[in-house]
């Protein structure tokens, strides 16, 4: 299911990021800690799934065969998914979900801001919608970092645990491979390596304000962009793709 068009490949990666995180967030539906949070998590999930549809739709258009956005989402296997690993980690407890969201939101806002000036008009247009949503998400996830960090002993402990577990997955957000380097050279893709210093400053300031200690940088994992995933992605896909695998071509 791979495609030769580099922009299409890039769009698929961004779609995979959005779909996988959107799915993780959707798992909270009816399990939120209280009604308002349940609605918020589902709303954010919807934004991500919408974002995935726009990127997959564009990838399908560029691929030039008769594949649709659904083929990309439902008929590819783990090794074909190019999402960053941080998105596929199980949702964990509420502190874990919000800590991941915060770390990803800070990245997303900077990323989508840059992608808005892509020489590719469609990627730029999708980014124009996404950046507004990510800004809105960030307001809430940053707020939760402060509330959980400065809340009870338990909320503080859970948040610190989450940040420690997530920290080694964050450097991957700033890695560039050959595909992205080449596309960034043409002004199509974002040079994510340039986003790291500002991300670091912002995240460290929030962690300090939330009374969190900065985790040791003694491990890091990557490989998502190359299709090397954690075991969790397969479990997620078996849930996400079940209906299409069991009943090919099923429609609502």
């Amino acid at each position, binding site marked *: 299911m791979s495609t030769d068009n580099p922009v299409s490949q890039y769009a698929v990666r961004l779609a995979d990021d959005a779909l996988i995180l959107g799915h993780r967030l959707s798992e909270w539906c009816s399990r939120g800690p209280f009604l308002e949070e349940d609605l*918020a998590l589902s709303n954010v*999930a*919807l934004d991500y*799934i919408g974002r995935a549809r726009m990127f997959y739709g564009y990838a399908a258009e560029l691929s030039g065969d008769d594949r649709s956005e659904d083929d990309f989402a439902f008929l590819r296997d783990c090794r074909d998914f190019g999402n960053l690993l941080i998105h596929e980690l199980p949702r964990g407890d509420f502190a874990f979900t919000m800590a991941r969201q915060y770390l990803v939101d800070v990245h997303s806002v900077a990323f989508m801001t840059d992608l808005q000036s892509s020489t590719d008009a469609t990627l*730029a247009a*999708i980014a124009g*919608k996404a950046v507004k949503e990510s800004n809105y998400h960030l307001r*809430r996830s940053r707020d939760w970092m402060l509330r959980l960090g400065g809340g009870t002993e338990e909320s503080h402990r859970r948040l610190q645990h989450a940040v420690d577990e997530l920290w080694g997955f964050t450097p991957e957000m700033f890695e560039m491979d050959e595909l992205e380097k080449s596309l960034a050279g043409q002004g199509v893709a974002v040079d994510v390596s340039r986003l790291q210093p500002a991300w670091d400053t912002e995240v460290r300031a929030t962690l300090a304000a939330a009374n969190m200690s900065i985790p040791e940088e003694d491990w890091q994992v990557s490989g998502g962009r190359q299709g090397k995933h954690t075991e969790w992605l397969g479990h997620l896909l078996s849930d996400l793709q079940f209906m299409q695998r069991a009943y090919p071509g099923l429609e609502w």
Partner: protein
Amino acid sequence: MRIPLQPVEQLEREQRRRNSEVPELWTTLDRVMDPELPVISIWELGVLQNVELRGQTVVVTITPTYSGCPAMHTIAEDIQAALEQAGYPHREVITQLAPAWTSNWIGPAAQEKLRQYGIAPPQNADSGGVISCPHCGSEQVQAISEFGSTACKALYKCRDCAEPFDYFKSF
């Protein structure tokens, strides 16, 4: 006196309608309402960008509000139905992402309709807008959640009349 600034995209949208060679098509589409806010039309919401007749085909251009808003699908179906009913057999609905939709495209008349319906209209903080309770008009309101029952709404509560209400997010 504050002079409200008209966003340039809004101005262009209004000009397209004013200068249109097919005003009857715009009027037909005025019947298509936002399925989740049935008091305002897709024109008033800012979703309807253009209507043209290309040969025999009516081409309608819409801009999505939120990326994952499920109402967009319904809106496209409702457009098809309204045009079919008005006797146009050839139709196409195009989704356009840029310029990105903003709640600033909801004009004063539509804002008032939202308020009558019990939803506080979007307020642009930069222009000094204040959120007020759609039931009693009090400005003593409190945000309960940044996210409400649909993507476009946040949840508020009035401190004076104690009623909860939806606020159409400024976005």
